[in-house]
C-alpha cells in the first residue's frame, strides 16, 4: 500500500510537471490517498474531437500498479467513438489484459488521446445499447473482446 502511494505521488508530480498535450489535472480533483483522480482532456486539434472537453476518472486499487486502474469517461461529454460506450466505459486492451505495471496514468492518457485522434467517424460501438443495459458498473468486470485494432 505504501509503495503504491509513493508511486502515485511520483506519477502525480510527473503529470503536473509535463502533462501530455491537452491533458491537465486539477489538484482539487485528487481523491483521498491518491486512489481516485479526475483527469481533464481536450480533443486534439485537427481531429474529430477538436474543441471538445472530456473528463476521465481513474480509480486505483491497493494492488496498483500490478492491477490496472479502472478508467472511464465521466461527466456530461462522453466522446462519441466506436470504442467508447455511452456510459463512459472504454474498450482498450491496455486497461485489462494487456496492462503492464510499467504503464502509467500518462501512458494511459496518451493511448486514449491516440485512440480518439485516429477516429474517422464519430459513432458508438455497435453493441452500445445492449452493453450499457447489462454491464457491471466496473468496466474491469467486463470480458472485452476487441473489435479491431485500427481505431
Amino acid at each position, binding site marked *: 500500500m505504501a*509503495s503504491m502511494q*509513493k*508511486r502515485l505521488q*511520483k*506519477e502525480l508530480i510527473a503529470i503536473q510537471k509535463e502533462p501530455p498535450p491537452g491533458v491537465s489535472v486539477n489538484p482539487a480533483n485528487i481523491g483521498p490517498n491518491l486512489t481516485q483522480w479526475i483527469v481533464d482532456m481536450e480533443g486534439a486539434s485537427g481531429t474529430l474531437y477538436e474543441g471538445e472537453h472530456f473528463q476521465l476518472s481513474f480509480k486505483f486499487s491497493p*494492488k496498483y*500498479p*500490478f*492491477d*490496472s486502474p479502472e478508467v472511464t469517461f465521466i461527466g456530461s461529454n462522453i466522446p462519441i467513438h466506436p470504442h467508447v460506450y455511452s456510459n463512459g466505459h472504454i474498450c482498450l486492451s491496455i486497461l*485489462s*489484459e*494487456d*496492462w*503492464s*505495471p*510499467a504503464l*502509467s496514468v500518462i501512458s494511459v492518457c496518451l493511448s486514449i488521446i491516440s485512440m480518439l485522434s485516429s477516429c474517422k467517424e464519430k459513432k458508438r460501438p455497435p453493441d452500445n445499447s445492449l452493453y450499457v443495459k447489462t454491464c457491471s458498473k466496473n468496466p*474491469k468486470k467486463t470480458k472485452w473482446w476487441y473489435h479491431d485494432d485500427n481505431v
Partner: protein
Amino acid sequence: MGNCLKAVSSSNDDISLLREATSIPRESSSSSEQLGPPPSYQETVNQPSSLPVYYPSPNVSRPASQLTEEEQIKIAQRMGLIQHLPTGEFDGSKKNKECAICMGDFTIGDPIRFLPCMHIYHTECIDDWLMRSFTCPSCMEPVDAALLSSYQTD
C-alpha cells in the same frame, strides 16, 4: 496433487511442490535447490492461518484452495522459472536509473533481478508481477519463451 498449493508453510516446500506438480526432469529441480530459496512472492506465505492468494492472470486473484488444477500447475511452473532468472545487486550502472514498476530510483546494493530481455527491476517488484504474468513489463517479451530458448541453445 489436487491441493498441491494449499497452505504453503515454508519456502522450501515450494520446491517439493513444484516437483510433484510438474514433470520437470529431476536434473533441473535439483539444480534449482542450489540456487537458494525461492523469492518471497507472497507476504502471506509465513502466516499459516490465512491461505495465500495467487494470481493466475493479472486481474484474477484466487485463494490457493480455489485454484483449478491447470492454474496450480501454471503457478508452480512460474515459481520454478522465477528461480532460474539471475539476481544481483544494483551496481550503480548509469543505463538503468529507476525501477519501472515502483518508479523508485535504484540505489547501490538494491536487490535486482535480470530478465532475459536485459531489463532489470527490483527483485521484490518484478517477482510480484511475474507471479501474475510471465512477461517483461517494459517490452512485453514473454519471459519463459526466452528462458526455454536459452536452454535449448546451451
